[in-house]
C-alpha cells in the first residue's frame, strides 16, 4: 500500500519540487516573482478569497432554507447542491459560457472578464459551505433561540448572537475547503475567462501555459507555491475542525 501511494503520489510530486529548483533558488524566485506570475497568483488568491466569502454568506443562507424552511421541491434542490461535485469542470465552464457568454440569450457577455473567473469559481465551490453547515444546523438545539425570542430579540439578532457562533466552525471549515478548491480550479475557468495575463489568468492556467510553451521549470515553481498553499489550507482546516469539535462539547 505504501508502494501504491509512492508510485502514484509521492514520486510525481517529488519530481515537481525537484524541477522547480532546476535553475537554482534564484531561478525559482525569478519564475515566481515575474510580473505575470505575481499577477496570476494575486488574482488566484484574490478571486478565491472573494469566492470563499460569498460562499460563507450564500452557503449559510442556502443551508438555512434547506434545514429550517419548507417549500415544494426542497428535496430536489437539496440534491442539486451536489451537482458541481459530479459535473466535470469543463462542462461547468461551458454551461456558464452558454448563458453568460457572447452567444448568451440574455445579452450579458462576461467572457474574458474577471467576473467570469468569479462565476466559474462560485459554481464549483457551491456545495462546500452548504454541506458543512447543514448537519450542524440540523443538530442545533432550538431552545436558546426560543429563549432569546421570548426575551424580545428580533430574528436577525437571534441569528447573529445565538445561531452564528454555533455555526462558525462549520462555516469556516466550509470556507477553507472552498478556498482550497478555488485556488486550483482549471477546467471551469479555461473556456470562459480567456487566459488574459494580468487580467484573467489564474495560476493553474498559467502553469498549463508554461508546460505547453516548454517552460517546465517555471511551471514547477508556480506549482510549488500552490502546493505550499494547499498544505497550509489543509492544516488550517484540520485546526478548525478540532476547534469545532471542542466547541461542540
Amino acid at each position: 500500500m505504501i508502494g501504491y501511494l509512492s508510485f502514484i503520489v509521492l514520486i510525481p510530486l517529488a519530481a515537481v519540487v525537484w524541477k522547480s529548483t532546476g535553475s537554482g533558488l534564484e531561478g525559482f524566485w525569478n519564475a515566481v516573482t515575474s510580473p505575470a506570475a505575481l499577477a496570476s497568483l494575486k488574482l488566484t488568491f484574490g478571486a478565491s478569497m472573494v469566492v470563499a466569502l460569498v460562499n460563507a454568506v450564500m452557503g449559510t443562507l442556502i443551508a438555512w432554507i434547506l434545514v429550517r424552511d419548507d417549500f415544494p421541491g426542497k428535496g430536489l434542490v437539496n440534491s442539486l447542491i451536489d451537482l458541481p461535485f459530479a459535473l466535470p469542470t469543463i462542462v461547468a465552464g461551458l454551461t456558464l459560457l452558454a448563458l453568460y457568454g457572447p452567444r448568451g440569450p440574455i445579452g450579458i457577455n462576461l467572457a474574458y472578464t474577471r467576473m467570469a473567473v468569479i462565476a466559474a469559481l462560485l459554481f464549483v465551490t457551491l456545495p462546500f459551505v452548504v454541506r458543512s453547515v447543514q448537519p450542524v444546523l440540523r443538530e442545533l438545539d432550538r431552545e436558546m433561540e426560543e429563549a432569546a425570542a421570548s426575551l424580545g430579540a428580533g430574528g436577525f439578532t437571534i441569528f447573529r448572537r445565538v445561531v452564528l457562533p454555533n455555526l462558525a466552525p462549520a462555516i469556516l471549515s466550509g470556507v477553507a475547503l472552498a478556498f482550497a478548491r478555488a485556488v486550483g480550479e482549471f477546467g471551469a475557468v479555461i473556456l470562459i475567462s480567456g487566459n488574459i495575463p494580468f487580467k484573467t489568468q489564474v495560476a493553474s492556467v498559467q502553469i498549463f501555459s508554461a508546460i505547453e510553451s516548454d517552460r517546465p521549470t517555471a511551471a514547477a515553481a508556480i506549482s510549488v507555491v500552490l502546493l505550499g498553499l494547499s498544505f497550509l489550507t489543509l492544516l488550517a482546516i484540520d485546526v478548525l475542525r478540532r476547534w469545532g469539535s471542542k466547541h461542540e462539547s
Partner: protein
Amino acid sequence: MKLLGGAGAILVVVVALLASACGGTSSAASEGSDGGGKLTLVAYSTPQEAFEAIIPAFQKTAEGKGVEFEQSYGASGEQSRAVEAGLPADVVEFALDSDITRLVDAGLVDSDWNQNEYKGILTDSVVAFVVRKGNPDDIQTWDDLLKPGVEVITPNPFTSGGARWNIMAAYGAQIEQGKSKEEAVAYLNELFQHVAVQDASARDALQTFTGGKGDVLLSYENEAITAQQKGEDVDYVIPDQTILIENPVAVATDAPQSANEFVRFLYSDEAQKIFGEKGYRPVVKSVADQFDYETPTTLFTIQDFGGWGTVKDEFFDPENGIVAEIEMSLGVSTDSG
C-alpha cells in the same frame, strides 16, 4: 494480509500499465499499405476542418482504404515539442518549417523531407486583419493597428507558429515601406502595447476574437475564411504589404508506407481543391488557378529575411531574440525551462 493486499494492488497497477503501454507503443508496429493500419496525424491548430473533409476522401481511394486516423491539433510550437517529447506521429503538418527542423534534429524526421518540387510546403496563405463585420473601426493598414484604443489580438509567439508569421509580416511590412531595421523593431514594440492577450494558438486567438475581445485579430487568411464558413460575423482585410505563409508537411522516419501515400494524396488535385475550398491557397498551380484569392500589393516571403532558421534565432530566441526582449519589457516571461 495487509501486506499482501498492498503488494497485490501494486502488482495489478503495474500489470495494467504494462498492458496498456504495450498496446500504445509506437505506430511503427502497425503495418498495412493496403487493407488497413493506423496513421497518426499531428498538426497545428487550424487545419482540422480541412482534414475532416480530406481524410474521408483519402479513405475512398485504393491506397487509403481501411486506413484509420488519429489526429491531434494544437499550437504549432507545442505540437512540435510534444512530438519531440514522445507524442506518436506518422505525418506532421506544422505552421512553419522550423517546427519540422526540430524533429529532424531529434532524429524523428528524415533530413530530406523537403526535397520535393514544393519544398515540403503543403498549403499557402497570407497574414490578414480579421475585423468585426463591416469593419467598423476601418482598419486597413498596418499603421491603423497603432491607432489609439485599438486592441489587437495575436497569439503567443513562443507557442504558436501563426504568431510568428504575424510578427514577421508586421516587421516585413515596415521594411517594405522603406523603414530601417530599427524603425521596424520600434513598430513591433508599439504594436505589442496594443496586444491585450496572447493565446497559445492561432485557433485560440480566433476564439478569443469571436468571443468578443479585441478590435482586430492578426491571423491566417484561412482562419478568417473558416470563421466565416462557421457563421461568425467577421470580415477580413489583406493589408497592402503582407507575408506569404507557407505551411510544411512531413512524414516521420519510422512511419508506415501508408503515410507516404497519404502525403502524396495531399498534393493531389482533389485534396488541394478541398484545401482551396476551406480557405487555404493551394500550392498546385493548376488548382490554385481555379480559386480567385486576392493578390496582395506587396507579397514577401520568409526567405527575404533568411528563412526560419535564421529568423528563429534572431527574433525568437527565448532569451536574446528581438521579440523576447519586447515581451520581457512588457512583463511577459519568456524563459525556457
